Every structure is written in structure tokens, then in C-alpha cells.
């Protein structure tokens, strides 16, 4: 990926639109606000910012407002917006890039679920669902959520009680470290 030269000592290219263009290839200014993306968005009824709002705010350099928006983290990446954009704008990819940028600025922006999920991969090389649920509960404070459903999962043989780290778990951890360093 060919990022344009950034200002000395500065992590960011000068503008948000330039940053998005460099990281995703998308020119957010090409969005003409038809709203087709938001019409097909399954989460639009729950989010303050819909996909076409995200595109408009990005095009108008509303960096702080966008990066602080909870709406970014409510995107399911179902890709309906991207599949239907008549001008090839790829809102799903733009939202991923904005989430990554928000996480750069404040690692806490990454919610309890994603942090817990990535912890499992780092620890075992694979996702360990019981560990994910327990870590997520502790992080989110939702301690009683799903306590009645766990026996159902267990009884159906769907819940492993002990994680089995893969042989190459150190290789996976090294990939995590290398990617974090590359993206820093």
C-alpha cells in the first residue's frame, strides 16, 4: 500500500480523505449521497450515523466526530452497502479503516468483544469460545448475560471446557506483534 509522504513527525497524512484514499483506495468525495447504502443497511435503524452519513462526514473532514462515533462499531460488515453502491465507493471498507484509525488514537475505542476475541487468538492460535465469553463478561460487566444458555450449549456438546493451543501459537503471536509494529 503506497501511503503518501506524511508530515515530519506526524503519523497522519494531512487530511482524512487523503488517509482514506491511501489506505482503502476509496475516494469518499465520489459519494453523491444517493442513500442506497443506508437503505440496505441492517443496522441503520439503530445507528446515529448511517453509511451515507459516514461518507459525507469523511468527505467534509469531520475527523473527530467520526472517530468518536459509536456507529462505526455497530457496522456488521455485511457488505450490502458496498455491493449496492452505484459509484463503487465501498463504505464497508471505509468504515473498517475509520475503526482502525479510531483504535490507533485510543486503543480503548476497540470494544470489549473485539479485544476479548483477539486475546483468544493470541493465547491459543484459535478462538476458544468459553474463554471469549468469560473475558468478555469481565470486560463488559455483563456478568449475568447468557448464564441460562450455557448449560444448553454444554449439553449439546457445543462448548469446550479446555482450550487446546495449536503447535504454532508462537508463530501466531509473532504475526500479531509484527502487524501491530507495521501499523503503528
Amino acid at each position, binding site marked *: 500500500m503506497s501511503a503518501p509522504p506524511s508530515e515530519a513527525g506526524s503519523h497522519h497524512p494531512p487530511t482524512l480523505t487523503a488517509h482514506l484514499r491511501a489506505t482503502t483506495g476509496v475516494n469518499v468525495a465520489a459519494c453523491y449521497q444517493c442513500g442506497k447504502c443506508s437503505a440496505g443497511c441492517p443496522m441503520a435503524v439503530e445507528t446515529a450515523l448511517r453509511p451515507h452519513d459516514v461518507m459525507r462526514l469523511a468527505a467534509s473532514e469531520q475527523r473527530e466526530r467520526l472517530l468518536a462515533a459509536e456507529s462505526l462499531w455497530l457496522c456488521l460488515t455485511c*457488505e450490502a452497502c458496498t455491493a449496492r453502491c452505484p459509484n463503487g465507493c465501498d463504505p464497508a471498507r471505509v468504515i473498517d479503516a475509520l475503526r482502525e484509525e479510531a*483504535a490507533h488514537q485510543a486503543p480503548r475505542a476497540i470494544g470489549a468483544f473485539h479485544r476479548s476475541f483477539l486475546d483468544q487468538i493470541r493465547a491459543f492460535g484459535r478462538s476458544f469460545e468459553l474463554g471469549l465469553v468469560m473475558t468478555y463478561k469481565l470486560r463488559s460487566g455483563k456478568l449475568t448475560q447468557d448464564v441460562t444458555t450455557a448449560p444448553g450449549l454444554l449439553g449439546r456438546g457445543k*462448548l469446550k471446557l479446555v482450550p487446546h493451543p495449536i503447535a504454532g501459537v508462537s508463530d501466531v503471536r509473532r504475526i500479531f506483534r509484527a502487524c501491530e509494529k507495521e501499523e503503528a
Partner: protein
Amino acid sequence: MRIGYYPGCSLHATARELDESLRAVASALDLELQELDDWSCCGATSGHATNHLLSLALPARNLALAEAQGHDRVLAPCAACYNRLATARHEIAADAALAARVARVLERPFANRVTVANLVEVLRELGPAITARAGRSLAGLKVACYYGCLLVRPAAVVGFDDPEQPTSMEDVVRAAGATPVAWQMRLECCGGAFSLARTASVVRLGRAILDDARRAGAEALVVACPMCHSNLDFRQSAMLERGEKPLPVLYLSELVGLALGIAPDTLGLQRHFVDARPLAARAAAEVH
């Protein structure tokens, strides 16, 4: 036929019956599944939502393992894993600078030569063999084929079927002798990875999908993704408590397995939350 097999994390846990039914069906149809040695998680949603390079490097590790283990094609039955593996393959092939960055973090030989297949396309290829061996046990069974998001989108990455008017699942259902219904919600998202973090959203989205399938006269929903199954079967238990009518959710491989006369317990039907065994018993009764 022999193919590399990337089960992904779900198939070793909450989606065990997808692994069990696929292995039983593959064995019946002479498809040899060779599980990749030492495979790791694809990174899933949490990977791509937080670190783009990581979201490519984690799948690339598995594609590199497949290459080293002598495969030219890998089957990823989980639609989410399939999508991440196919996306990594696509993006790395399209961007030499990105490919160099992935190679730098991977630290192992990787030529990006392996193609990635999903459950539906592999079963569709096996369609004639399924029809040849299927009895008439599923005749008259009406099912709604649910694609969700990750099997057909984005079209540039997956491209095995039309992103708005797909037909591949219906083809497999017909090959197995059942009848697909026409309905509207086949491509709407079920809430994906939000099962734990935003259960209310998943229940809202799931209810609309289940209602539409019932309205179209479906007796079961057919899926090809562990997240879809969990959101529509496991999370349906909350809806049933409020008196809603149960709609069994079958993996496509389970439906094919029933058509081939494989025992429901071998296919893992006892692991569902919404009991699918009455459907299986009806199918078995049709045979005799």
C-alpha cells in the same frame, strides 16, 4: 476428489454439527477432506475491524500452510472464514506492495496459489452425485435458502454466484430432492458477530428473517454459516419462549446428509436448539 480442509474455530465448538455432517456427506460422495495441519484462526470480524494487515496475515498463514501441505484448493465451510480467506487471497493478488508487507510479517514461503471454496459451491459441484444417490426422502419438503452476507458479498472477492440473485443453494436443495421456496430475506444480514455483544440486534434481525421464511411456507431454513446458524437457531430459543412458532434451521450439509439417508445423529441434528429431528423422522418415513 481431494481438497484441503480449513474447519475454522466454530466447527470445533458451536458448529460441531456442520463439521460432522460435512465429513459424513464427503465420505458418502468420495470427497476426501484433508484438514490443514496446525491451522489458526482467520481473525474474523475482530481482525478486520481493528487491523487491516493482521486481517490479511492471519488468513495468509493458513493459505501458506495449505500450499506447503500440497493443496491447490481449500474448503472453508464457515462463510465468515471463507470470506476472510478469499478476501486475503484477492487483496494480496491485487496489490504488490501489500503482498510484500504480508510476506514480511508472515516469514514463510507464500506464493498465493491456493484457491478458496465455500460449502455451497463444493456441494453444488457434487450436485449430480447427490441426485444419483439421494432417495425421495425429502420430496415435498419446503425450505428457505438463506445466504446471508458473507457467501455472496463482496462480489469482486467471492464471485461464485450472483450477489443479488444467487441460485447455488437452491440448486443444491433441488439436487437433494427438496423444494426451495421463493422469499425476500435471503440476503439480509442475521447480525453476524453481534450474538454476544448486541443480542437484541441479533434477535431483531433474526425474527424478520424467520417470519419471512414462515410466510413463504418454508418448513425449515437452510444455512451455510455457523454465525447464521447460531443467530437463527440458538437465538431463536429466546423467541420461542414468547410463544413464536419454531422453525428448524438446517446446515446445507445436514439437508444433503438426510437426502443421502445418513442417520440424523451422525449429522449432529441432536445438537440443535430448535428440534430438527421431527423433519428427519418424516424424511425417513417417506423412504419406507
